[in-house]
């Protein structure tokens, strides 16, 4: 009895978590497929913004995972002086909302000459501490024996990371990549500060300026399609990656 009731309760709760995504799709179809035709045929600036979003999100999430896997290896496997303090700084910066780092980011993008280009979004994302933090936490749970054993075959640490560690924590790597992707896909304040040419704005920014109506629901539905697709394709990897995070 308790089991039945709690199963029902959890099922209803889970449904409530999925409902909004479904509601957006339903609302977008109220006027048939016209808003979708508008999006693809009559509103080229939205299509362009979609392409910009893809460009920024793919490059920054891939770069971030590549850089962070190496960093996570050092943070999780090598003891050195100042490790704790350095990781502490990473965590603090990770916790800062963009508004706190907005002036520094503006200053550096001007100084490097990347202001008003997608690079102004991509570089800070590649080096953002979140992926390094997440991957470090997951990598801590890899058994040391398997790394030590791999040492006997090769002396190249890079090979060990690529052939032993990454395959073992494939779920974790996919999870970090998809989460970074979704985060970049979702940026609104950042492009408004780091870019001024509207032609470079990603779709999230354009959506924030679209009035209510079927078109806005259709554009929103299309906008969530990619993160939703990534989630459906990689669901088992993502869950496995987070489950790999298991500390005593």
């Amino acid at each position, binding site marked *: 009895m308790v089991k039945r009731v709690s199963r029902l309760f959890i099922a209803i709760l889970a449904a409530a978590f999925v409902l909004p995504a479904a509601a957006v799709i339903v609302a977008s179809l109220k006027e048939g497929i016209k808003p979708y035709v508008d999006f693809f045929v009559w509103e080229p600036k939205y299509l362009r913004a979609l392409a910009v979003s893809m460009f920024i999100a793919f490059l920054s999430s891939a770069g971030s995972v590549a850089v962070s896997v190496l960093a996570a290896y050092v943070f999780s496997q090598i003891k*050195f002086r100042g490790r704790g303090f350095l990781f502490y700084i990473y965590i603090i910066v990770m916790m800062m909302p963009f508004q706190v780092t907005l002036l520094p980011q503006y200053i550096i993008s001007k100084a490097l000459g990347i202001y008003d280009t997608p690079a102004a979004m991509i570089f800070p994302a590649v080096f953002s501490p979140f992926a390094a933090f997440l991957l470090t936490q997951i990598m801590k749970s890899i058994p040391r024996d398997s790394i030590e054993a791999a040492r006997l075959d090769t002396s190249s*640490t890079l090979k060990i990371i690529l052939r032993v560690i990454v395959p073992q924590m494939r779920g974790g790597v996919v999870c970090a990549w998809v989460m970074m992707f979704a985060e970049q896909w979702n940026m609104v304040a950042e492009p408004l500060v780091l870019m001024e040419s509207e032609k470079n704005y990603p779709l999230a920014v354009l959506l924030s300026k679209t009035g*209510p109506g079927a078109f806005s629901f259709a554009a929103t539905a299309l906008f969530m399609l990619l993160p939703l697709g990534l989630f459906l394709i990689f669901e088992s990897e993502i869950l496995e990656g987070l489950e790999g995070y298991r500390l005593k």
Partner: protein
Amino acid sequence: MKKKSDIFLLAFSLAGFTVFYVAPFLRSLGYAFLDNAFTKRFAGLGNFSALFKNEYFLLGMKNTLLFTAVSVPLAMAFSLAVSLLTVSFAGDMPFVKGAFFLPVLLPSATIVTLFSRYASSLPPFLALLIIFIWKYSGLNIILMMTALGSMEKGMLEAAKIDGAGAIRRTFKITVPNILPVLFFTLILSIVNSLKIYRESYLLYGEYPDKSVYMLQNYLNNHFEKLNYQNIATAAVIFAAGLYAVVGILLRAERKRSEEIW
């Protein structure tokens, strides 16, 4: 056995992290001690004392603190309750974990579009609270469920035989056992609660209701007015607050799990 030279693998991350975060942050700190961006005279702590008299800064700080203090414990309690219920009573159910995780990946624009259409009459603070719990609990729930699922059941059985009630068992045995995961989800929850500005901005624009005017609004609006010394000063205060909070959390966690670090 491990090579010390491997430490250089951190170089890529550290170099970019320094160039894009640490160095410009330290550079911007200079503004906190200048009277304004044009004459550039040293102002001592003048900016700080002015800021603590600024009613919008104080309102923003109060609301940010209040939102974090309310939303983070609520989200943690909700996630823990759902995880406990699932692991101890409901058992494994297909799709459930995925369903809870879905909103984590959904763009803010999706939920904001829905909210502005169907729930615009909700008080803003409550609306942001609901969005926060809905959007970010999934991550907590999965991590907690996993930790609970892999816990050893022996101790719980023993306590049950000794006559400890369900609530006592939960707080005396279960919670201490999954403390590292609770710590991890707590940090992530704080990070995410500070990101609620995105939804707030999309729903209410740059000048929202007084109840949800946060420090992030203050910083954003003063950036647009080019008041660099104001936002640099506020950023210093924000960073100092985080430094203290993270320090306390890390110290508490390290005491618990010496073996990890």
